[in-house]
C-alpha cells in the first residue's frame, strides 16, 4: 500500500520545480524574476527565449552553481541550495558545447564521469560501449581521443555521460546549438528515448521547431520572466513560431 502511494507520489510530484525563483546578480541585474515551473517524470520541458532571457540562469540555479536571491529550485523536492551535493546526484547536465577531456578517449571520459557521479567502480568497458552505441557513436570511435571528435560526436558523448549517470532528471542547455540537422535529429530521438524511460528533461533552446517536436511543455522566457507556458496539447493547431515572435516583439 505504502509502495503504491510512493509510486503515486513520484508520478504526481514534480522532479524539477522552480518556486518563485528569483536571481539578482551582485551588479543589480535581475536575471530571473519569480519563475515557477514544473517538470514531471517522463516529460520534457523546453524553455524558449532570446539570449539573456534567464534560461541558463535557471539551469545554473537547479545545479546550484549560483544561489537564488529568492525562491527555490527543487530537484525531487529538495531545494538545490540546501543540499547541492545530493541534488547533483539526481540531475545530469549537458551543456551547449560539451567539452570533455580531449586527451581521453570516449570510454575514458565516460568512465571518469561515471565515477564522479558516484559509481565507485566506474562503468565497465562493455557498459560504456553499449551506452556509446546507444547514443549513436560507432565502435571505431570509442577508443579515439576526444580531440578528434566533431561537435556532434562530443554532444553525443555528453549525452552518453548523462545516460550512464542514470539520474532521474536531465538539464540541457542549448543542446542542439551548432549541430547539423542530422545530428540534431539523432540527438532529439535520443532525448525522446530518455523521456520514455521516465526521465524528467528540462531543456533550454532557441530551436522552436525541435522544441515543438519533442517537448511536452513549452515555456517562453523574456527578460527573466516566464511569459508563456503551455502543454503540447494546448499548443495543438497553433503556430508556435508566431506566438514566440509575438511575445518577443511585445505584441502578446
Amino acid at each position, binding site marked *: 500500500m505504502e509502495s503504491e502511494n510512493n509510486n503515486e507520489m513520484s508520478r504526481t510530484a514534480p522532479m524539477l520545480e522552480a518556486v518563485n525563483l528569483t536571481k539578482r546578480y551582485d551588479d543589480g541585474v535581475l536575471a530571473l524574476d519569480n519563475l515557477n515551473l514544473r517538470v514531471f517524470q517522463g516529460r520534457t520541458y523546453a524553455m524558449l527565449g532570446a539570449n539573456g532571457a534567464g534560461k541558463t540562469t535557471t539551469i*545554473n540555479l537547479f*545545479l546550484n*552553481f*549560483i544561489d537564488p536571491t529568492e525562491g527555490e529550485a527543487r530537484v525531487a523536492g529538495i531545494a538545490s541550495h540546501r543540499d547541492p*551535493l*545530493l541534488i*547533483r*546526484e539526481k*540531475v*545530469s*547536465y549537458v*551543456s551547449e*558545447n*560539451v*567539452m*570533455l*577531456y580531449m*586527451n*581521453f578517449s570516449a570510454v*575514458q571520459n565516460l568512465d*571518469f*564521469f561515471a*565515477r*564522479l*557521479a*558516484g559509481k565507485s567502480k566506474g562503468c565497465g568497458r562493455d557498459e560504456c560501449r553499449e551506452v556509446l552505441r546507444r547514443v549513436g557513436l560507432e565502435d571505431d570511435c570509442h577508443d579515439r581521443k576526444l580531440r578528434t571528435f566533431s561537435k556532434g560526436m562530443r554532444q553525443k558523448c*555528453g549525452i552518453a*555521460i548523462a545516460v550512464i*549517470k542514470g539520474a532521474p532528471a536531465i*538539464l540541457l542547455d542549448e543542446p542542439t546549438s551548432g549541430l547539423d540537422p542530422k545530428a540534431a535529429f539523432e540527438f532529439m530521438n535520443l532525448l525522446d528515448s530518455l523521456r520514455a524511460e521516465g526521465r524528467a528533461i528540462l531543456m533550454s533552446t532557441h530551436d522552436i521547431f525541435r522544441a515543438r517536436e519533442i517537448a511536452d511543455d513549452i515555456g517562453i522566457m523574456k527578460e527573466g520572466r516566464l511569459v508563456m507556458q503551455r502543454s503540447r496539447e494546448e499548443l495543438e493547431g497553433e503556430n508556435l513560431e508566431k506566438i514566440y515572435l509575438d511575445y518577443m516583439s511585445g505584441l502578446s
Partner: protein
Amino acid sequence: MIGIIVKKELYETLGSKKFHISFAVCSVLILLAFYAGIRNHQSNVERYEAAKADNLRKLEGLKEWHEVENYRIFLPPRPLESLVGGVSNDIGRTIVIQRGNELEAEGSRFGDDPVFAVFGFLDLEFIFQIVLTLFAILFAYDSVNGEKERGTLRLTFSNPIPKSSYILGKWTGSFVAVCLPLMIPLLIGCLMPPVLGVVLSGGEWLRLGFVILSGLLLFGAFLAMSITVSVFTKRSSSSFLVLLVIWIFAILIIPRTAVVLAARAVETPSVDELAAKKSSFARQLIMEDREKVDGYRGSGNRDMEVMMQEFQEFMNGIQEERRKKTDEYNARLNEERRNRQIVQEKTAFGLARISPSATFALAAASLARTSLDQKERFLGEAGRYQEAYGRFMLDKTGIASGLRVIRISDGDREDGEVKASIDPGEIPVFDFHEVSTAECVKGSIPDMGLLLVFNLAFFALAYFRFLRYDVR
C-alpha cells in the same frame, strides 16, 4: 572522490604532449647533470691529487726545514659538490701555510677557469631551481581557470563532488603526475656514481636524498602557487603571465635584491680596506722593530757562532712579539669584519627566504656542504693546522717565523758527510674534518620546513579561494 580526481590528473597529464616533451627534456637534463657532475668530480679528484703530489714534490731535495716555503693544504673535493654546486666553485681550494701568515683560500674553480663562471654548471640545483619550477608553472598555470575556460569544470561540478576534494585532488594529482615519472631519471642518475666508479658514503646518499626531497618541496611550492594563481585569475593567459613575473622575481630578483639590501643595511669593510689597515699596522710595527734592531747590542762575545745565536734569539723575540701583536690586531679586524659579515649574511638570507627558490638553494647548499660555511670551515681547519704546522717547524728549525739568520754553506757538513734531505712525510697531514651528516641535515631542516610552509600556505590560499569559486 579525491582518488578519482588524482587518477584523472595522472591520466590527463601523462597522456599530454606537453608532459612527453617536458619529461624528455627534464630526463636528459637530470642524467646530464649526474654524468657531468660525476665526471667533474673525477676531474677535481685528479687535480687535487696532482696538486698534493706537486706540493710534496717541491720539497724533494731540500736539506733544511727552513727552506720549506709555500707549503699548501688543499680542500678535498666531494661528489655532492659537483651535483649541487652552491658556492663551492667560488671557494678557494688551497691555502699557503706559513707560521704567522694570514690565511687566504685561493685557487677557486671559477678563478682558475673563468669560462665556467660565465654560465655556471649544469647541476641538480639548476635543474630543480630553474627547470622544475618552470615545469610546475607550465603544468598548473591553467589547472582551474583552464578547466573553466574549456568548460569541463561545469560538467565536473554537475556531479556530487565537494570543492575541497576537487582542489586537493588537483594538487595531489599534478604533483604525483610530474614527480613520479621524474623519479625514473633521478634514480638512474643515482646509479651513475657507483657505475662510473665514484663511491658515495651512506651519509652522502642520505644528504643527496634530502637534496632531492628539498627539490620536490620546491616543485610542490611552485605547483601550489600556480594552482593558487589559477584560482585567483579568470583567464589562463593572465595566470601564465602573472606566474612568469612571480618566477622572475622568485628566481632572479628577490635573492639578488636581498643581498644588495643587506649590503646597504649592514656595511662591511672590504678586504682591500682591511688589507690596507693591516699593512699600515705592520709597517708601524716594523718601524718600531727596526729601532730595536738599531739599538741591538750583543753580549760582547766575539765568537761568530755565539754572536749569530744571540742575534737569532733576539730576532726571534722581536718576531714573536710582532707576530703576536699582528695576530691580535688582524684577528680583531677579521673578527669585526666577520661579525658584520655574519649579520649581513643573515639579513640577506633572511630576506631572500621570501623566495622559495632561494630557500631551496640554501637548504641544498647546506646539505651538499657547499654553503658559505664551507669556506669558514676550511679557513678554521687551516688555522688549526697552521698551529700544528708552526709547532712542527719550530721544532725542526728552532726558528719562530719570518726573518732568519742563515749561514750559507755548500750543503756538506763540516765533518765531510753529505747532509740528508728532509723527509716531507714528517710534515703533519692536513685532515679536513667535514660537518657531520646529522649536522648538515639539521642545518637544512629550517629551510626544508619553510619550503613545506610555502606548500601549505599556497595550497591553503587556493583551497579557501576555491571553496567560493564560481565554477560556471
